[in-house]
Structures are given as C-alpha cells and as structure tokens.
C-alpha cells in the first residue's frame, strides 16, 4: 500500500493530484466523467469581488502542443460563489480551493475576508499572475514589492493555508518566491500561463480579441519544470507544480523536480478523465519503484 497523502503547507491532501484553476470549472462540469471525491483537491475557477464579464471573444487559439486563452476572469463574484456554488460542491470529499483575484490589494483582501468566514474551505490560491486582465493580476506577480505587499495583506486576514500562484513571465522566479515566502505564504503554486500571441496570416489580425493571451499545455512543460526545480531549491515552503502535465509520467517529473502536489490544467480539455489516470499512474510508479510514500518522490531528482 502506497501512502499517497501529502501536506501542502498545512493543507492535507489525500493525494497529490489536483486540478488547476480555470480549467476545471467548479468541478461539477466533470462530475459525469468520474467521482470528484477521488481528487486531492480542486482549484476552482478564478473569483473576483464583483461579477466580471471577462474579455470579448475570440478568447482561444490553438498553438503547437498548447493553447492561448484570454478568458479574463469571467465569474459572477465572490458572493455568488459562496451563496450559490459552494453549497453545491462542498459535499465532495476533496479540498475545494478558491482562486482569489483582484485589481487592487483591497479587493484581494475583501474577497479573502469573505472566504475566511466559509466553513470547510481550508486554503486559498492567491492569483497574482493572470496575464489576461488589464489591471491587477500579473502586474502584482512580476514585481517583487507588489507580490510581497498583496501576500502580506491577505495573510493577515486568512487563517487557512495561503498558496500564492506565481507568474512565469519574470526574469527570476525564485526572487518572487522568496518574497512571498517571507510575506507569509504557506505554499507557492507555479506556473500560471505565459504571455503569448497568435496571428491569422490570412486576415492579418490577431486570433484573440485581447491580442495577447496566456499560453498553457505541454509546450510550456520544460520551462515550468525548470521553474519548479529552481523554486524548490530556493524556498522552504512546499510547491504545487503545474504546466503542461498530460499524464502520470509528467506529474512524476514535476514531483521529482520538487513539487509536493501537482495541478492538471489544459489536459482536462483533452481527456476529462486524465486526473484519475494520473492518480493511478503515480500509485503504480511508487509500487514499481519501491516508494512507500509519494512524498519520497518530492525533489528526489538525482543531480
């Protein structure tokens, strides 16, 4: 029997496999395909203080081994989440982790304060790395002082596990990781999407309404893996790793590079059942290679 439990900065996960914010809706969209209670956790889609319509369409373009999105945090706001969505999903036997967004530090604080009152929510993911909104979002995540400021502010008003989601669009991601660690983050998650662009050569127009969007999928995996490994070696808090994970082997690579748990994003669109397959694959790998606990994989890369 392999022990699949992991501890992500105080948050107990029954296994290291979670689904990434914005790619798994609120979970219910996948309930037809498998039992959501099998998951370690669900990072639900990005939530803001007020209702947001998101960006104009087109919002999506396919690229080589990846995709660009420009959703722009469309959601009905935190009150709607707490009143209408959370009651529908809280019975799943898995961690529900809201992804918190804001255009100002105050907005981050207000959303977090409301979540802090909700029973059953043990962690939040602070998104300071969304490339698809004009104000806030990535602007917080690419500068160290602002990343620290928002983390400190949210830390003060949240009692559970605070996971800060980092942007890969930076010169040195370890600097930001160390900054938010010092500011009180319990864990970091990385990476969010890379700022990219696609053009239709025939119409000579951008393929996204916002011109640029966020790149995800296997295309980014080598860069994401490098960043997870760098951050693992730079901070003491645990890492939730993601970026192009398509199968159990990819997930194991992220854990070897230093991820305590992993998130599956774009792969959910290709195979809605991928996350359960990854759980099984990790368990089999541990059995085949004599690991009693999945935590033995974390950072086990031999360099």
């Amino acid at each position, binding site marked *: 029997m392999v022990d699949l439990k992991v501890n992500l900065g105080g948050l107990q996960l029954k296994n290291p496999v979670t689904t990434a914010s914005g790619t798994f809706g609120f979970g219910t969209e996948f309930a037809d395909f498998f039992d959501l209670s099998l998951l370690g956790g669900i990072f639900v889609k990005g939530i803001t203080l007020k209702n947001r319509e998101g960006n104009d369409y087109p919002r*999506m*373009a*396919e690229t080589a081994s990846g995709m660009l999105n420009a959703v722009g945090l469309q959601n009905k706001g935190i009150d709607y989440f707490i009143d209408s969505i959370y009651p529908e999903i809280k019975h799943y036997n898995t961690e529900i982790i809201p992804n918190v967004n804001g255009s100002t530090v105050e907005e981050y604080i207000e959303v977090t304060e409301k979540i802090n009152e909700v029973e059953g929510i043990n962690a939040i993911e602070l998104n300071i790395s969304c490339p698809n909104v004009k104000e806030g979002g990535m602007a917080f995540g690419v500068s160290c002082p602002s990343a620290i400021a928002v983390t400190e502010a949210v830390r003060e008003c949240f009692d559970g596990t605070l996971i800060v989601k980092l942007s890969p669009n930076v010169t040195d991601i370890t600097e930001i990781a160390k900054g938010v660690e010092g500011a009180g983050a319990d864990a970091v998650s990385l990476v969010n999407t890379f700022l990219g662009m696609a053009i239709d050569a025939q119409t000579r127009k951008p393929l996204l309404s916002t011109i640029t969007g966020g790149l995800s999928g296997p295309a980014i995996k080598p860069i994401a893996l490098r960043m997870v490994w760098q951050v693992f070696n730079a901070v003491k808090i645990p890492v939730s790793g993601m970026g192009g994970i398509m199968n159990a082997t990819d997930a194991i690579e992220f854990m070897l590079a230093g991820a305590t748990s992993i998130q599956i994003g774009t792969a959910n669109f290709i195979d809605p*059942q991928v996350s359960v397959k990854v759980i099984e694959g990790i368990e089999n790998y541990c059995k085949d290679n004599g690991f009693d606990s999945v935590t033995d994989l974390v950072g086990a890369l031999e360099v």
Partner: protein
Amino acid sequence: MKHVQDFKVKTYRWLNDENYILTLQGESLETEILPGNFAEIRVPGIADVFLRRPISILDFNPTENTISFYIKAIGKGTRQLGELQIGETISIVYPLGNSYSVVEEGKALLVGGGSGIAPFIQLGRELKKRNIQTTFLIGGRTKNDVFLTDEFSEFGEVLVTTEDGSRGEKGFVTHHSVFSGDFDFNKIYTCGPDPMMKAIAKIAGEKNINCEASLENMMACGIGACLCCVTPTVNGNKVVCTEGTVFNTKELGW
C-alpha cells in the same frame, strides 16, 4: 449523461471531395442525444492538432451503437478525420450542448447552409414524430454545395437556393420566395454561417416569429469548464458550449 468514450471508425461516405459523413461504432452508446447536440472529437495521429474538435452529431443508431457526423474538411483536423483507417480508435466526448426546442404544433421552417445543416436530421425526425409540417430551406453557392436533401425529404418539403442558380432558386436563402407572400410558419430554426443566421433572425424578428440559431465558437473543452467560448447576449456573456449552442435569436440581440 456526458461520456468520454472510444469508438471505432466504421464507414466513410464521401459527398464530394471535401464533405463526408463519418460513422463510428462503439461497444455501447448513450442514446439521450438531442437535436443540436455536438461531440468533441479527438483527432488521432497528427502532430498539429492539440485540442479536440467540436462537431455536431448528425445521427445515431442505438441498435448498432453507431453515431455519425457530417464534416467539411476545411483544416488540418477535419482533413485528418477524413483519412483514418477503418477500425481505427477515436475518442469522443458526447453528447454536448443544449438542443433545439422542438415545437409541439404549427409549421416549422429549418434554414441552413454549409456544414451547419447536420442538426437538421435529428430535428426533422423529432418534428415529424409530432406531426409538425416541416419545410427545409437549404442554401449553397452552387448545386455542388447542397447536401443531405434526400434525407431531409423524408421529414418534409425541401427548398433550395444557390447563388449561381444551378439548383433551386437563385440567390441567398433570405431571398427565397418562401419568405414572401403567405408566411404561416410559427417557428424558424437556423444553423450555418453567422451572416446567414443573422439575416434569417432579422426576418424572423420582422415577422415576429420565434427563431432559434445554433452558434459556433472557438472551443477548448466543450463542457463549460474553460469559458473560452462565450458569446455576448442581451443577458451578458453566455457560454456557447453549455448554455448554447442553441439560442433564441432575440437573446442574441440579432
């Protein structure tokens, strides 16, 4: 209930050199498939197709566990789907989307063009079951772009327009004589290119007739999880793959 399921390629029926009907067979079949539903098809064996491709469900057969699609080869994915080996495995997520609301009385006009006409087989059959008097109006550039009319004629009258006049009336569907004179339809269904659907919606609005259109969009997931596929409506952005693909044209503000 939605499924992700492996099927095998059973048959191809080529309508011309770029339009084909692909029929897949599975070990089982979800039969709660409604007119207007679509599937997300994984294109096997090609380097450049990363995401699944959304394709309307043309028809299905619960006795044989088959499901079929009417596909126009316009790009790498839809071309590759036309070149699979018989027996090859292909994964589809289905059935997806809402559906056309089938009227229970009166007369229905179904206006379509291009690969947009796929939902009309199922819709025509459902209307016939309810004894609705149904008219199909199918448009194309030339007679070589007009397909499935034999199939439609099982469910009702078939009218055709072509831009060059090579079949049916000459011109666009919107110029067809069915719209002039006595017009006693109480429902219009439309599917096809946006400009065509908008023009039909405008006529429907003028005549004050209830009209439903099925929208396309760039889709990543097809199940409402990514919010990539929204369309603006009078009630704000709506998710095309779950809140649609079928919308009342009034809600679209058309």
